[in-house]
């Protein structure tokens, strides 16, 4: 029976493994819980779900498996009277129950519900007759009618909810959390250049042996600083226009790079690199920095990464005055060339899928300027790109 449960949870894309499932069975065998479905819910979540961003998916899978909530379509034709009755009993005060009795009792209520369900074909919200959510009809969820029967979204007034998973408390964790930055960080990690700086706190064995020997066998300890990643990175991000489709993946890359590289400089540009760049998108027209100055400020041991889709009109790269936003004295290609001359380790990461590249002339041109060092903005592409940088 629980094997199906396991597959149901996997079907909802909660990443569970066999090992975790065995842990759950082990916990059941060890009798950590006794029979109660609430406890089983908690225990299953503790053992199977390892990140709060998956809680919502788990809740839905759980509800689906235990058929606690059925979509109204599934309810059509067959109403589980017993279940509704039980639920209503838990929710209603004695007075309210008495009121229902006066209205003809549960059987009457259920009968009407059945009729309504048959009349109703679609999901419905609001209103005062149809079954749905947030209405004043006696049927549906979150309604105001005192004798209302809650279907689905049962909201608990006592901490011990009958259907905790139905509340879906963790709904907004699901898409709020950035996914996949860890993998990106691991890919970026390959870009390492260790150097010894800072406090001398590590024993330098070779030097110690050498100077001890020189010291006629009397110990002369030599210390040296620990190795740190000293790689310096300068990144230029394309923003606006066609890049809006790729915001999410670029944001992930940005946050991964921010936490991975201690020496990270970043600037924004639009479509192609021209004579000025900016650091704050809200003030892109006010506070601009000359590209020339940027290239002068950061020495050539920086590694250069462009992030952009390079999807534009070819004029924007090859002709003076080709920019869509302003009059540029020099062609974009000249500025790209300038940057490449300053930093000989450079790559271009492109969020467009690689197979699309030759449909855009501008991508071909940029790739040519970059001397074929353009890589797709995927894990595999980043890994290849980082190799080109080292």
């Amino acid at each position: 029976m629980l094997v199906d449960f396991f597959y149901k949870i996997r079907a909802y894309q909660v990443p569970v493994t066999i090992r975790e499932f065995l842990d759950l069975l082990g916990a059941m065998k060890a009798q950590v819980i006794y029979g109660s479905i609430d406890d089983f819910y908690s225990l299953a979540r503790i053992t199977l779900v390892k990140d709060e961003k998956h809680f919502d998916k788990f809740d839905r899978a759980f509800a689906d498996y235990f058929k606690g909530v059925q979509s109204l379509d599934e309810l059509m034709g067959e109403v589980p009277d017993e279940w509704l009755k039980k639920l209503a009993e838990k929710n209603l005060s004695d007075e309210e129950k008495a009121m229902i009795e006066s209205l003809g009792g549960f059987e009457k209520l259920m009968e009407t519900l059945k009729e309504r369900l048959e009349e109703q074909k679609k999901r419905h919200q609001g209103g005062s007759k149809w079954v749905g959510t947030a209405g004043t009809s006696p049927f549906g969820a979150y309604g105001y009618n005192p004798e209302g029967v809650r279907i689905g979204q049962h909201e608990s007034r006592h901490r011990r909810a009958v259907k905790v998973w139905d509340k879906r408390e963790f709904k907004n964790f699901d898409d709020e959390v950035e996914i996949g930055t860890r993998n990106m960080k691991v890919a970026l990690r390959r870009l390492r250049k260790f150097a010894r700086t800072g406090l001398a706190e590590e024993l330098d064995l070779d030097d110690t042996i050498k100077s001890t020997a020189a010291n006629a066998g009397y110990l002369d300890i030599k210390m040296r600083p620990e190795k740190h990643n000293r790689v310096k990175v300068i990144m230029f991000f394309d923003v606006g226009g066609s890049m809006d489709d790729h915001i999410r993946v670029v944001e992930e890359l940005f946050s991964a790079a921010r936490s991975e590289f201690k020496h990270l400089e970043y600037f924004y540009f639009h479509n192609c690199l021209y004579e000025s760049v900016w650091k704050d998108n809200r003030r892109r027209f006010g506070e601009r920095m000359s590209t020339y100055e940027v290239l002068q400020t950061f020495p050539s041991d920086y590694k250069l990464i462009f992030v952009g889709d390079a999807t534009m009109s070819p004029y924007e790269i090859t002709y003076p005055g080709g920019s869509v936003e302003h009059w540029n004295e020099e062609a974009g290609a000249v500025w790209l060339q300038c940057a490449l001359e300053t930093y000989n380790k450079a790559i271009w990461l492109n969020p467009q899928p690689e197979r699309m590249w030759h449909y855009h002339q501008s991508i071909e041109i940029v790739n040519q300027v970059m001397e074929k060092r353009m890589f797709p903005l995927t894990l595999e592409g980043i890994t290849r790109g980082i190799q080109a940088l080292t």
Partner: protein
Amino acid sequence: MKFVGTDKYVSTEDLRLAVNAAITLEKPLLVKGEPGTGKTMLAEEVAASLGMKLLQWHVKSTTKAQQGLYEYDAVSRLRDSQLGDEKVHDISNYIVKGKLWEAFDAGERVVLLIDEIDKADIEFPNDLLQELDRMEFFVYELNKTIKAKQRPVVIITSNNEKELPDAFLRRCFFHYISFPDKDTMTSIIDVHFSGLKKELLKSSLDVFFGLRELPGLKKKPTTSELLDWIKLLVAEDIDPALLREADTRKTIPPLAGALLKNEQDVQLFERLAFMARRDR
């Protein structure tokens, strides 16, 4: 052996279940949650309620996994050999035990807290897989395996600064401490300030939860800030009626500095209050 909570720590049912499952199945328990929801406190209370010793390993950005196992102090050994100290012949004199070793070696079962594991290097959890799973590790210098006499109760906290590797997560139980609702919060305050006037408690909670719902706050006030604030309110002997007037959207509650720790938040809040007053 069962954790049932203590009179100093309010625990929800699913938290107790998580702790008990971890104790029974001898698995590490990973605890996440908003700051100030009592993640670190949990280990202390588990230790206190089960009558076990608590070992704490606070992780920093420079912490290495090896430091939790042991460190070989080669430098002192070298120095001792120069001085002709007798100790030098036994290498075990220079092995410094780490927290994990201490926990494995203890005569009785202990609680081991690995605090803020996300502070360390991204590979740090991966370096502890075997040690936490099998509860044993090998000491090369002594050429022997250290095995846990009693598997310690391991509680690991994380503030979500870094994502933890999947292989590590698979080996842990996981519990997310949600922010307490009003009822739970009332009992938490009850634990800290017994005999607090009912009305003061109610109005301060209203203000607190109102503040948390304010959109755009950089840092929402947490439980520990609420407790500090109430301490101040009691010390200053603020009239609860004053608080009740203070609808968070209209006026600034007294001593708000204890709740809002970010000057931008205070500014945002003042601006909102000003706008609300103007609209009235």
